[in-house]
């Protein structure tokens, strides 16, 4: 029994999904990310923690080129997804974002029906051949996001009519529907109640079987609960990256220690 629990926490350090090399990000003159090198593992939940403004969300957004939409933002260095630089000119950001999905802090469903919200991605990427297959994908995505039971009788109702927590789970379902390889989550539970949070955390744990999940969270307990790897950012630097257990029991950098123990540092 004990061994099984230990096995669950073991991650394969050799299967690297995303490898960032010397990444720098500027917003105009402000140097937001400084020299970040990190290997994000496949089939692993990686948590980014750090105080507000430390660069964790900025770095997360570099992983699927969301920063492309900000004109003053400049990214340098390499981010390799399965060995391929995602900032290469021949990479299509839209295709990239189907492989690297994202869930944001505030739920942002499309002004469409619940069904169409989830079906949107599979449709534009041509992932299904017929209506029956699409129905199946929608149902399975909504089930994965722990929303199916609540919405199965009103799939044609607008997504914006759901409660905040339901909207967020709808966004997760939408992200999961395209079967991404990597799922980026930026504070996905900050608008959810504890039950919905637990459901999303359970979902994250399930997603780990197939995907690489990267989550930015301000809740250190959430990072401790859901992740196997934790990265601590501070003032644009990646201060410490290691096994979550090690970070939370025996951090090696005093800045990490101060942050996770809630000290003035």
């Amino acid at each position, binding site marked *: 029994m004990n061994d099984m629990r230990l096995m669950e926490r073991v991650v394969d350090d050799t299967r690297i999904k995303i490898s960032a090399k010397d990444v720098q990000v500027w917003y105009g003159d402000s140097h937001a990310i400084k020299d970040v090198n990190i290997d994000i593992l496949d089939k692993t939940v990686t948590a980014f923690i750090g105080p507000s403004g430390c660069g964790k969300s900025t770095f997360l957004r570099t992983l699927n080129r969301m920063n492309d939409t900000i004109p003053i933002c400049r990214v340098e260095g390499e981010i390799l997804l399965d060995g391929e630089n995602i900032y290469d000119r021949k990479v299509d950001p839209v295709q990239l974002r189907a492989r690297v999905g994202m869930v944001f802090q505030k739920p942002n469903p499309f002004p469409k029906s619940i069904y169409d919200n989830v079906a949107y991605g599979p449709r534009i990427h041509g992932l299904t051949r017929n209506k029956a297959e699409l129905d199946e994908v929608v149902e399975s995505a909504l089930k994965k996001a722990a929303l199916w039971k609540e919405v199965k009788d009103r799939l044609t109702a607008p997504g914006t009519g759901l409660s905040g927590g339901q909207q967020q789970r709808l966004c997760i379902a939408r992200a999961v529907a395209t079967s991404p390889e990597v799922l980026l989550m930026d504070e996905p539970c900050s608008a959810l109640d504890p039950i919905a949070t637990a459901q999303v955390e359970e979902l994250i744990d399930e997603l780990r079987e197939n995907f690489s999940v990267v989550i930015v969270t301000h809740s250190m307990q959430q990072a401790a609960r859901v992740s196997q790897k934790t990265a601590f950012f501070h003032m644009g630097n990646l201060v410490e990256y290691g096994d979550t257990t090690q970070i939370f*029991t025996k951090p090696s950098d005093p800045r*990490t*220690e101060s942050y996770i*123990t*809630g*000290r*003035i540092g």
Partner: protein
Amino acid sequence: MAQHILSAFDRDLESIQAMVVKMGGLVEAQLVDAAHALDTRDEELADSVRKRDKAVDALEEQINEEAARLIALRAPAASDLRVALSVIKIAGNLERVGDYSKNMAKRTKVLLQMPTINGSTGAMRRMAQAVEGMLKDAIDSYIQRDDKLAADVRARDIEIDQMYNALFREFLTYMLEDPRNITACMHLHFIAKNIERMGDLATSIAEQVIYLVTGEIPDDERPKSDSVTLANHPEV
């Protein structure tokens, strides 16, 4: 280390630390007094040791409750977590030292009804003093977060083992010499064994201090003196 942003967290930690220090002081006094009562055949002091054990037990319970509360309400991490975990173990170890001191006081009262066994008192006194020193240093190393002093305590345990082995041999000799010594010697032997166990407990406290400071439990095998071979007494 810097203060917590939440100052109540600091106050919680400080109050637990204060309880451990208080318990350490009480238990240290229990051991010193129990050894002194044995040495000077002081029945009154032995009674007082027995009575004071309740206060030690109550403190252990209080420390465990406070540590559980801290874990539940404050979700301590890293060094804070190590404080919460180590105080529980240290309090448990101190409580055992308190129990052994009480047991020593009980046996002292029984021994008062019997003639003295000459010759062993000096060795018993020296052994008790050595363990008192280890316990004091273990508690000091906790208060000062001094892992070097803790490592020193850990290294000293072998001396206690050797003293115990010597006493074991001595008691065997007395018992073989005159069977009328057996009852008293059996009690003295139990006391000696208990003092030796208290040395182990002081060592265990020192190990918790090393864990608290460094984050690692020392895993190298401590030098030990094997007492099992001594069971084969040449004349038995």
